[in-house]
């Protein structure tokens, strides 16, 4: 009579831990398709429920002098982007006045995408969109709110037909920004890191710079990715750093709560 073979606990553990370590050591390029496959198959279940526990904004009363919050945000973004454009044109004009170097460039191509799901938790602030490598999407490209042109994040991962957008509020997101100091009337270069909540943090800025609440924060230009600075949000809180009083502790509130968006626009890399 055949005896049932039993495998020792040690052998099972050794085999499984080896497989796990191999999975861990495999490059992300090779394994990311599994993550995208899961999202693709179970997206209808994953997106069920609310994206985040967002506070609801309500108008106190309606009158001709008041506009809705969304309309206000739209106008506010447009105004700041226009000012940024104007400054960029000023710079170009100054350059052109001296010498004409190259023919004018056409606008950067933009691809519209639908948001399939938003993962908003402490460790992940991402959107899954229905455009991928076949649409020209690549890692590092900037993602905007369509129509309003405010930056909400960058592409962090792509598959053939889908991509992940890492929001500027994601704690893993690190972005070069420009702070427009209203008091000093000039840009200050800085680095913004998401706080994993609903804001971004700008560290290591000297208190010698005059920065105030309400000053605007732009995504800095990046050759081939972003030709002119685009608005991200405004400074919602500023105080002296508790550990180093010579530095500012700056909190940035993005213009749009990205988790509520249904569509986004991606600036395609020109290179």
């Amino acid at each position: 009579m055949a005896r049932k073979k039993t495998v020792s606990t040690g052998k099972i553990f050794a085999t499984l831990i080896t497989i796990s370590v191999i999975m861990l050591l495999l490059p992300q390029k090779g394994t990311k398709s599994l993550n995208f496959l899961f999202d693709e198959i179970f997206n209808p279940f994953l997106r069920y429920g609310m994206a985040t526990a967002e506070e609801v904004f309500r108008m106190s009363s309606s009158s001709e002098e008041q506009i809705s919050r969304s309309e206000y945000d739209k106008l506010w973004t447009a105004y700041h982007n226009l000012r940024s454009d104007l400054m960029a044109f000023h710079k170009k004009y100054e350059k052109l006045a001296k010498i004409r170097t190259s023919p004018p460039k056409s606008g950067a191509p933009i691809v519209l995408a639908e948001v399939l799901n938003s993962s908003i938790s402490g460790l992940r602030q991402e959107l899954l969109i229905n455009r991928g490598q076949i649409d020209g999407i690549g890692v590092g490209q900037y993602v905007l709110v369509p129509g309003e042109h405010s930056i909400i994040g960058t592409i962090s991962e792509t598959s053939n037909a889908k991509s992940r957008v890492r929001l500027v509020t994601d704690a893993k997101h690190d972005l070069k920004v420009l702070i427009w100091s209203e008091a000093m009337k000039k840009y200050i270069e800085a680095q913004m890191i998401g706080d994993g909540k609903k804001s971004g943090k700008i560290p290591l800025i000297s208190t010698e710079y005059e920065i105030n609440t309400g000053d605007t924060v732009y995504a800095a230009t990046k050759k081939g990715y972003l030709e002119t600075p685009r608005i991200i949000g405004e400074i919602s809180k500023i105080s002296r750093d508790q550990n180093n009083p010579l530095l500012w502790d700056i909190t940035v509130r993005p213009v749009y709560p990205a988790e509520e968006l249904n569509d986004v626009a991606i600036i395609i890399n020109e290179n």
Partner: protein
Amino acid sequence: MKWIRFTILLLILTLLNSGNLLNFISLGSSNVRPDLLLIFLLFIGANCESNEAIIASFVIGFAADISGASMGPYMVSFGLFGSAVSQMRKVVLMRRMTHQALAIFVLSVIAGGLAELLGAIKLNTGTANIFSVILGTSVYSAVVGPLIWQLFSLLAGWLNVSDKQYKRQSSR
């Protein structure tokens, strides 16, 4: 253990853990939520026969990885600590709710921390609020974990989770 039933339950827990439905009970601006997969890992580790518990731990880790950002970190972490729990169940009993809560908290801090560390190394990214989120998740999981444990206990018969040894030792 009935593996098909285990897979169905694991799939439901994975979808809840990675989807938006649990945001209804998320806390704070960091959206801290209990880690259902980790509670399930501990339940299986504490109630299953060694070989089954080890296999289940790696499978739960695989589920956490595939629904997350990268493959490997949770398989290694959950596999290691799930296996450790399955070995320790012979000496550490988790019958009282306080013991369950404490075990969930400790496992969440250690296993969650290791998984996030391995993930950060693999993806070459740092997370600014990692400590507060892991601590918040651990505390929240420890608070609601014993209640979820009771639900799993109700499903133990359906899963055919063998806890004869566990019962024998606890009655000594």
